[in-house]
């Protein structure tokens, strides 16, 4: 049975409007929905509000392209292939972007709260740090805390009223318009099967108002339902599905292909300046579609990244010196 959820990459990008709040699947340099990130850059989306459990290359591409006004998260970089987010750093220095810092666990708990319909989560993490410094409430300082999509406060502090465990910090639910996931398999009705670590994908999919799933392959729904205990996200939590093989490149996909470290290193090295970013985007994003991009990368590169099906990672990628 087909559910009519299948759309194209272009249609998926059009669901994300100027000013939308947006989040993604994956973890740092793994399973990021790059084909759709590139499409948003081609369509010159503006004013995005990214709310991410953790950032990564997808943040750097969108920020470098000028698509992002607000970034709420805890970390950005390229792991081994680039030690920090140079585009974000440059835009912070030029005051071209607002950054709201939370800790990693706080971001995760914010999405867990949103995913369970709770207005906030309570935790004991990061107490005593400048993350909780009231002077560093960026969205508050900018007068953006309207209590609708952006919470009235960055934090509230409380004492445990039940067991007397002491200081607690309340963090607001992460309310987002759109979540874009990038996974191995999705069924025609939207059931998702993630292989390997599923990071914070179940939480972000449930928290968002609209969830778009980009998959390496769309498979018959019955196939996934035969072993429903292996599935990760429920059919009706997913609104739209798109089939995009190698759609996470240059990030990796467990069991399918490795991170393209050389590509990320090249991006990191070349995009310290805006001119460098624009040049990189001209070469790898504008004027191409997904197939054109894969063609430009070429068979030898993609075969090298392809994972060994028994080991789940590529044996061809040279990792060290």
């Amino acid at each position, binding site marked *: 049975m087909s559910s009519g959820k299948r759309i194209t990459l272009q249609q998926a990008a059009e669901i994300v409007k100027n000013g939308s709040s947006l989040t993604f699947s*994956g*973890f*740092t*340099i*793994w399973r990021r929905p790059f084909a759709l990130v590139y499409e948003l850059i081609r369509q010159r989306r503006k004013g995005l509000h990214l709310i991410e*459990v953790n950032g990564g290359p997808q943040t750097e591409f969108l920020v470098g392209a000028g698509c992002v006004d607000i970034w709420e*998260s*805890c*970390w*950005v970089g390229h*792991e*081994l292939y680039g030690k920090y*987010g140079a585009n974000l*750093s440059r835009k*912070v*220095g030029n005051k071209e972007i607002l*950054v709201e*810092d939370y*800790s*990693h*666990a706080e971001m*995760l*708990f914010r999405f*867990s709260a949103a995913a369970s319909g709770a207005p906030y989560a309570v*935790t*004991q*993490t*990061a*107490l*005593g*740090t*400048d*993350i*909780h*410094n*009231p*002077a*560093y409430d960026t969205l508050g300082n900018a007068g953006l805390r309207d209590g609708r999509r952006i919470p009235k406060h960055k934090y509230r*502090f409380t004492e445990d009223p039940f067991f*007397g*465990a*002491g*200081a607690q910090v309340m963090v607001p639910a992460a309310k987002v318009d759109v979540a874009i996931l990038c996974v191995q398999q999705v069924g025609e009705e939207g059931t998702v099967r993630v292989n*390997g*670590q*599923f*990071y*914070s*994908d179940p939480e972000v999919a449930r928290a968002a108002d609209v969830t778009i799933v980009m998959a390496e392959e769309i498979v018959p729904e019955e196939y996934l339902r035969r072993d429903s205990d292996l599935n990760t996200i429920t059919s009706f939590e997913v609104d739209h599905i798109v089939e995009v093989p190698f759609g996470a490149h240059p990030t*990796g996909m*467990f*069991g399918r292909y*490795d*991170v393209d470290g050389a590509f990320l290193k090249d991006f990191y090295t070349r995009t310290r300046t805006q001119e460098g970013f624009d040049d990189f985007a001209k070469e790898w994003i504008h004027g191409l579609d997904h197939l054109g991009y894969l063609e430009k990368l070429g068979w030898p590169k993609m075969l090298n990244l392809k*994972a060994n099906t028994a080991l*789940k*990672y590529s044996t061809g990628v040279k*990792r*060290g*010196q």
Partner: protein
Amino acid sequence: MNKEFAKPEEYGLADLLCCAASREVQDNEIVFAGTGLPMVAIMLAQKTHAPNLKLIFEAGTLDGRPPEIPTSVGDARCEMGASRSSGLHDAFSIAQRGYVDLGFLGGAEVDQYGNVNTTCIGDYLNPELRLTGSGGNPDINSFAKRTVFIMVHEKRRFTEQVSYITSPGWRVRNWPGGETVHRRELYGAAYRGGPSAVISTLGVFRFDEESGRIYLDTCHAGNTPEQIRDMCQFDLDITRVSGETLPPTREELHFIHEVLDPEQIFIPKVKPK
């Protein structure tokens, strides 16, 4: 296996740091692993004196036994051999529940109370340089019983007071007022400990739990306590120095270079002179 100490020409600084970090791990502990040198150090402990340690990767691998060193904690190599392959909610809930004994972390700046900055250089509101941000650094540091920091030692990085507290040391700020307090007063029932060591490229530092102040424990070969004190912006306590940092053993070097990181992803091999 040969447990004799290696000669100075047989190892490099990265080997020494890796072995010093590995020796912070005790058997049967649950250890939170970050990407890079700490991952090699923990797996080295697993191969030598701590065969029963349990490894957690922040991305969601629980009780991992990777047959090959993962390139990052999201790497496919994390999963194979693990008890469970899960997600961040499990990793952070387990940590907040109090399971984690030890975490390895890094930082751009550390101060005399073990507060660490990975967010920005200079004033937060007008930064000279925006860095990566916190990641899980404050979380692991809040939840674990002990944390060990591995850092490049430069005078500008060892500050009296970090410009931004990303990760909580022993004396932290009580918000919203911001007065400085011992972390024990702030964390209440969640207080389990704090930073226990800083392993820099010059020496190994520890903390006095009561005063919260850092002191020098051992010097890496070729450095004197006075020289290391001169490389800190604060007045480093050098009255408790216990000696020289123990060099790697031949067994440890064998595991690092032949078994754990033969590809030299994180630890370069010293070329024989």
